[in-house]
């Protein structure tokens, strides 16, 4: 267990800025504020530059001899490839509207976590190396030379950004720090500065089909285990298809949900729903990952990992793909997938076999979000639900950054929640929907060694949860993201003790009345249902 200060100490945050220029402050690495570097064998497997053992706390980062030339060449290339990058380097007026929108700044007070300054870390080099006038004026004009300390600063702060895009919503020009962070991380890869928590899952995903490195037989074992639990709870045996050819639908969801509590209950919710509907659907072990840590690595890696979805749909002959609850997975599907790996014209526009609804919103990708699918089922009265089974939960809903600001999926999950539970309260309006706050662990930062910074970054979310806990007795934070299900439980324990975390389809699984089910006495977590506390097995 990592060591970090208690909430009453961590909350003493100083927002005042130093007198000295930010260019004169040195980056201090200490346990808890950075993630461990990529391991050499992982870098070698992925074919990435400069694999070596190194430690951010050491003075010598073992950069390649001509690292400056490498970085500047890549910088120039990125400016040529991305209009976004060029515009975002040029048009910022430093109005400061974004300054207090970042969760890491709110929870930590480090001025370099103000989105504008995070971008200036790159802009200062852009000016110092490409603009003659700025070169002459130097620091006055925010220009500086590329030195080793700059690389260290980049590594610190571009791995303290979760690419949540909250700042981009408030920026008058839409400057998107996620985009800038992606560029910076790609520059850092060129000299071998990256973090293992992103690269190892990416490597695993390439070989085994999922971030966790679960091999096919183990995946099937874990699935059977969850099916056993479902049988014990509901009395029904669900028999999911795996890697089966000729099914109408291929279902893909993050692997985190088959692996750990509380994601497994959401996974059970999917299994129960598909069985209830008698859906012609198959799971895949080859494409057993919805998420994509390539998004946090490089455009190439993102494309390579994402390509499995269409490849598997084609191999199995599926008509369309249904996607599970996940945040960044849906940014990739909504904004990148078809561009990278389309067209997907070997499939058909998703049509619900239960309601007949045609989902034109997914006409291009042929990939539907499970919340869109389930909301349509409920709207058409196709689900027999008993929301009282969720009466032990007083729920609120956390919008994932990516489904919020990279898609706009707000109403579908709320509609489902309001139909499967009877007690639902929203958090304050500045902390939900398009203004939602990150869990503190997005963009590949959900690792153990980074916990202190994650808890700091989680302050705005944690405090909003605490607000509804104190006001309405909320004890359950529902979400549609596998990373959230890993990061929010410790966050709630820290900032809002007593609040648990669930997926939306876990609550669907609880409420769904199955044909021929036995008398349900527990929920999917095997906790007694309301009024069943005294029932014995």
């Amino acid at each position, binding site marked *: 267990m990592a060591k970090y200060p208690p909430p009453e100490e961590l909350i003493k945050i100083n927002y005042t800025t130093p007198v000295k220029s930010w260019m004169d402050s040195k980056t201090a690495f200490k346990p808890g504020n950075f993630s461990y570097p990529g391991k050499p064998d992982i870098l070698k497997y992925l074919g990435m530059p400069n694999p070596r053992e190194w430690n951010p706390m050491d003075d010598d980062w073992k950069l390649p001899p001509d690292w400056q030339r490498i970085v500047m060449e890549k910088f120039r290339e990125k400016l040529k*490839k991305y209009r976004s990058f060029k515009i975002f380097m040029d048009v910022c007026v430093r109005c400061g509207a974004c300054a207090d929108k970042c969760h890491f700044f709110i929870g930590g007070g480090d001025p370099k976590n*103000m989105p504008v300054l995070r971008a200036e870390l790159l802009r200062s080099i852009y000016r110092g190396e490409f603009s003659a006038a700025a070169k002459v004026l130097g620091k006055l004009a925010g220009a500086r030379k590329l030195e080793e300390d700059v690389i260290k600063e980049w590594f610190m702060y571009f791995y303290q950004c979760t690419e949540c895009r909250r700042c981009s919503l408030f920026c008058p020009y*839409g400057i998107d720090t996620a985009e800038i962070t992606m560029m910076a991380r790609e520059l850092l890869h060129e000299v071998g500065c990256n973090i293992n928590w992103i690269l190892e899952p990416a490597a695993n995903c390439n070989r085994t089909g999922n971030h966790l490195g679960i091999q096919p037989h183990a995946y099937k074992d874990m699935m059977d285990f969850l099916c056993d639990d479902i049988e014990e709870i509901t009395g029904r045996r669900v028999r999911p298809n795996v890697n089966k050819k000729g099914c109408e639908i291929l279902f893909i969801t993050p692997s985190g949900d088959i692996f750990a509590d509380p994601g497994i209950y959401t996974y059970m919710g999917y299994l129960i729903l598909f069985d209830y509907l008698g859906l012609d659907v198959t799971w895949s072990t080859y494409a057993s990952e919805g998420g994509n840590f390539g998004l946090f690595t490089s455009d190439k890696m993102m494309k390579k990992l994402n390509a499995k979805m269409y490849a598997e749909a084609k191999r199995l002959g599926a008509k369309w793909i249904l996607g599970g609850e996940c945040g960044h997975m849906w940014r990739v599907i909504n904004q990148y997938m078809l561009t990278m790996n389309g067209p997907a014209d070997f499939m058909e526009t998703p049509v619900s076999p239960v309601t007949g609804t045609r989902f034109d919103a997914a006409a291009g990708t042929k990939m539907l979000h499970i919340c869109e699918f389930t909301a349509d089922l409920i709207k058409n009265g196709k689900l027999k639900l008993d929301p009282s089974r969720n009466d032990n939960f007083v729920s609120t809903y956390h919008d994932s950054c990516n489904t919020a600001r990279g898609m706009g999926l707000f109403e579908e999950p709320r509609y489902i929640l309001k139909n499967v539970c009877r007690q639902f309260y929203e958090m304050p309006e500045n902390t939900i929907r398009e203004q939602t706050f990150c869990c503190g662990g997005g963009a590949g930062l959900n690792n153990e060694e980074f916990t202190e910074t994650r808890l700091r970054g989680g302050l705005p979310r944690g405090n909003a949860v605490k607000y509804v806990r104190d006001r309405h007795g909320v004890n359950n934070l529902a979400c549609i993201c596998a990373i959230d299900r890993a990061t929010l439980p410790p966050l709630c324990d820290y900032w809002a003790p007593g609040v648990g975390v669930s997926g939306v389809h876990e609550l669907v699984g609880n409420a769904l009345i199955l044909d021929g089910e036995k008398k349900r006495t527990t929920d999917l977590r095997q906790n007694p249902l309301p009024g069943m506390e005294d029932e014995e097995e």
Partner: protein
Amino acid sequence: MAAFYSLLAVLALIVIPWLGAGMGMGALFGIVLPYIAIIVFMVGFVLRIVDWAKSPVPFCIPTTGGQQKSLPWIENSPWDNPSDKKGVFMRMVFEVLTFRSLFRNTSVKLQQEGPKVGYSSEKSLWLFALIFHYCFLVILIRHLRFFLAPVPWAVHVTEFFDSILQIGLPVMYQTDALILLGLFFLFARRVFDGKVRYISLMQDYFPLLLILGIALTGIWMRYVVKVDVIAVKELAMGLVTLHPHLPKEAIDPSVYAHLTLVCALFIYFPFSKLMHMGGVFLSPTRVLPNMSRRAMWVNPWNDPSIKPHSYEAYEDDFREKMIEAGLPVDKQA
């Protein structure tokens, strides 16, 4: 320090033409410089836009600020999360004309008891930015009276409304006062708000002080020395009609100072952050519709050689185990 140097630069831009005009260099500041300025501005502006436009937009990455268009019974936000060009047009209209994103601005307050993190609406930046930009626009339109003959109807209307309060003689334009208010606020924010001061550079102070200089010399000319407007128009019309000449009646040197500051602004514009005026129309997070799941967005440099780790290779890796677990395989062992 950056603010101080900016101030010195602006003062120099006032003093040099003021003295220069008196020393018979009127033609330099009144004719040569304006032509240089307008050419640099136009060429620079176009080149900058072309340079941006040359970089492709590989991915469709709008920042979505409202409900997507999905199921017909779910109300979507057509302007904050546009699904088509019409929606984007409306989003940009609100962004450019009303500074919609800035209107959302909030300010964080941390309360140690509780603890409680609160967010309050913070509209002052939005308000004063809006005041400044609109006043600048109105003043620009009013100045067309010097460059056009006959003076268009729209300019008369603008002048009429801008002076509707009928204060003083010559009658005061409200925008002259308001633009000062806007500029002072924006400048004070940079100096007194610690966060903004920390991020401010010379190129943030300089244009503010430059425009402040333009406004103050303008006010000086109109309300204090009351310059010969007929002569100024003669100079301006000469420039516009490409028959430049200095008017016979001597013009107050403040006119040259004012003109030089404006020229400095025009020359500086294409090389500076002031290009946000053009950039906002090219910002991929604002001007793209959220449509890339519905239809294909094409990336010109998409690399088709990037393939996934193939299923065949995957099965080769795990075939025995898959067969043992009862999973279907394409090739038997």
